[in-house]
């Protein structure tokens, strides 16, 4: 019987958690899926049936390829498995094709790729200091962190209901963070470079990586007071880092450079024509800005300050993705959003450069970069809040102050994902139950953190 226990691997709580959430994901297979499902089916079709030169030009479907080349290669590999499930899904002209086998294949591919995420969570748990803990399993930081990451409610509904492949991408990011914690900087840098070429949204946090690696890896030693020791600059390290990034980019963009398609690729990757806000507004600064503009224009119309003929016809709240002009407040350009973002991340970058606090400081800076880019970025999706929630989970098991902030962040962040579950109330019921679950978990985390770390002052 002992052999059976080891074979099922269920004596270990981590395996139980991972298996449990995988089973829950299987139960979510028949739930609602968004147009993202068709997006990925289309990309499977494009990468399978067309040559590389056509990938970034194909426009039969409105869901054109707008992820970097590594993701395209990933879809290509998937398509070779897909053909055993249903050959029809790989036809570019089969728009909105969603047979039961297609659904099964796509859902299982997401669940399968989450293996990388599970591995990354395991590596992150190793980086957590679990010395000052109680005997209860539910009070151990490793357990809490595993629950917060593996059972992350936002990731569940975005990946397994709405349908996307964020699981393994976040796995890559968490893995690179874990490697930086373990002082394996080259691996961390390599993993992040690879990640960038899978999904370029991670550019949001690239400044944190860049500054941290430059400051704490390329300068091998600090002065006693913690400030920079210029003489310890290591050319070898800088060059090896640069080489890693260059090689990864060459592998990714090389073929398209050879085909002279780089401008086209970049125009697909950075579609500035899509407008300041997404169809469903992400709850960021520009949403407030738009709302203020709307309110002022209504007031202006009522008080006859504005001429109704001058109001542009395109409405921001129409749910369409397009560019528009603001009526009262100045219109916002992509450059303006970039400047705002840069101003927002400047304080944390400064701290990372002038007062590095090791990997923990890096993680804090990364979270702040993610949040700042979410608040001030151009055409931000509400799903991007996960970019801040997941790294913050790692911080929250360290200090009571972080845990309090995390509680607010995770509750509001997951609540803001509500519009993603767009259909019938039955799905909203599931959302509410799951949201209560995640809130309970986060609250429990905060409570236990307060108990454990009541000696350290909250917030620094």
């Amino acid at each position, binding site marked *: *019987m002992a052999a059976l*226990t080891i074979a*099922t691997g269920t*004596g270990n709580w981590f395996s139980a958690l991972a298996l449990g959430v995988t089973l829950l994901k299987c139960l979510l297979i028949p739930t609602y899926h968004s147009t993202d499902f068709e997006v990925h089916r289309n990309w499977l079709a494009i990468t399978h049936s067309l040559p590389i030169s056509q990938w970034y030009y194909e426009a039969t479907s409105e869901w054109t390829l707008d992820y970097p080349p590594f993701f395209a290669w990933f879809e290509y590999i998937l398509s070779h498995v897909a053909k055993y499930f249903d050959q029809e899904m790989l036809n570019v002209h089969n728009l909105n094709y969603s047979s039961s086998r297609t659904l099964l294949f796509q859902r299982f591919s997401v669940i399968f790729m989450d293996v990388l995420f599970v591995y990354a969570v395991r590596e992150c748990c190793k980086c957590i200091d679990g010395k000052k803990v109680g005997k209860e399993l539910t009070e151990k930081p490793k357990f809490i962190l595993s629950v917060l990451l593996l059972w992350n409610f936002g990731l569940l509904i975005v990946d397994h209901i709405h349908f996307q492949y964020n699981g393994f991408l976040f796995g890559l990011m968490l893995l690179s963070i874990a490697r930086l914690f373990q002082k394996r900087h080259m691996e961390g840098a390599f993993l992040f470079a690879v990640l960038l070429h899978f999904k370029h949204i991670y550019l949001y946090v690239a400044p944190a990586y860049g500054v941290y690696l430059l400051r704490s890896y390329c300068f091998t030693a600090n002065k006693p007071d913690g400030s920079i020791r210029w003489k310890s600059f290591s050319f070898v390290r800088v060059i090896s880092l640069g080489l890693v990034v260059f090689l990864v980019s060459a592998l990714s963009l090389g073929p398209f450079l050879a085909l002279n398609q780089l401008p086209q690729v970049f125009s697909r990757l950075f579609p500035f024509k899509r407008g300041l806000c997404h169809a469903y507004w992400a709850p960021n600064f520009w949403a407030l800005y738009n709302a203020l503009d709307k309110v002022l224009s209504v007031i202006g119309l009522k008080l006859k300050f504005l001429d109704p003929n001058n109001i542009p016809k395109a409405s921001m709240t129409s749910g369409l993705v397009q560019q528009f002009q603001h009526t009262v407040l100045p219109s916002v350009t992509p450059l303006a959003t970039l400047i705002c973002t840069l101003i927002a991340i400047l304080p944390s970058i400064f701290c990372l450069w002038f007062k590095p606090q090791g990997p923990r400081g890096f993680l804090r800076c990364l979270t702040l970069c993610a949040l700042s880019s979410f608040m001030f970025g151009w055409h931000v999706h509400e799903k991007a809040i996960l970019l801040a929630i997941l790294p913050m989970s790692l911080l929250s098991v360290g200090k009571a102050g972080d845990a309090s902030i995390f509680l607010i962040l995770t509750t509001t962040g997951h609540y803001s994902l509500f519009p993603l579950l767009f259909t019938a109330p*039955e799905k909203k019921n599931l959302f509410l139950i799951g949201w209560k679950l995640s809130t309970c978990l986060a609250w*429990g985390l905060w409570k236990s953190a307060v108990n454990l770390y009541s000696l350290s002052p909250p917030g620094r």
Partner: protein
Amino acid sequence: MEKWYLMTVVVLIGLTVRWTVSLNSYSGAGKPPMFGDYEAQRHWQEITFNLPVKQWAKFINPDWIALHTSRGYESQAHKLFMRTTVLIADLLIYIPAVVLYCCCLKEISTKKKIANALCILLYPGLILIDYGHFQYNSVSLGFALWGVLGISCDCDLLGSLAFCLAINYKQMELYHALPFFCFLLGKCFKKGLKGKGFVLLVKLACIVVASFVLCWLPFFTEREQTLQVLRRLFPVDRGLFEDKVANIWCSFNVFLKIKDILPRHIQLIMSFCSTFLSLLPACIKLILQPSSKGFKFTLVSCALSFFLFSFQVHEKSILLVSLPVCLVLSEIPFMSTWFLLVSTFSMLPLLLKDELLMPSVVTTMAFFIACVTSFSIFEKTSEEELQLKSFSISVRKYLPCFTFLSRIIQYLFLISVITMVLLTLMTVTLDPPQKLPDLFSVLVCFVSCLNFLFFLVYFNIIIMWDSKSGRNQKKIS
């Protein structure tokens, strides 16, 4: 961590699993003209709504229950309504009973109580039938559980009331009626028939009669109507068994077509006698030595006897046995988990017909993992843990070499699980041969029946060999 907080998380997990299963197909989806249980429930709503009492449901879409015209009505909104009613009934009746039961368990730690609640709430059989196939079993089982709770905590009157409600909701609960009767009678005897015992007896009789009268009052107007109700409730005309079910008669039928050979009244007598013969020892012991533990185990063995030998049993009736087994999960985790897995497996043909393969597999695995992690069941297979110590000591008086009981049971478990997995794979992937189209269903029923017979013997052994000295030696886990 506080108990209530973890218990909330457990309940929310249970609700999440239930809701995700409900997103699947239901019995008879898109299959006119008979449809299935879903249509049956809707039809009953149609009847009860349109005949007398009309006032209450103004907020419900009248199209769903318009008399005659709504036959076979299927729409997304209606499905949502039906599923929601099951969830609300569950939330109001069954789940609080489970939570309260686990909190009232004695001699186990808080963590184990919460783990117990999790395992009970994750039991796949009830979830799949109520939220997948579509029924309202959680109401009757919930009421029965309130009854058990009441009686175990010495609130005999409230417990009896709850159980009467359960019976009047679904007549299948009569499977549990005998143990209730015997336990309460035993309690009365213990208190002395000339004093407090007699008073208790009278009070209980009044409660039972009053609740039955209240429920049946509208139908007592005419004798013919009452008889008609009884005929509908106990359809003896339908025969010894219907479809494929994991009981003795169906398995016997494989070798000897008793359904066709014997006349109807002989079948009735045969099933009546065998049922009562198999449950008599346990019930008599319960009257003579009433105890909470004996009560629970007698519930199991009685319901199992009824399931195996009774007339016109449906495969869903195994749920009536599963509920008491869930209650003894903390005492014999290994055997209970095994039984609950077999009970879910025995309903496989029904679940496959409703296209619930994926939820079945997933919930069964989740339940298995939950039990293994919470109770470490594979470490609790010694004779002491299986409560077979007194039995094996008695046997060893005649057969000194009888020391390998626990190892036999472990091997039987392995064989059982492997057979179940193989049969599931075969049923799903292979087509049955032309001459024997029901081959796999019959095999599933036959294997389940063998398992159930083994459990019947096992539970009866525990009841008969349970003694006061045995209880004193029980370890606190």
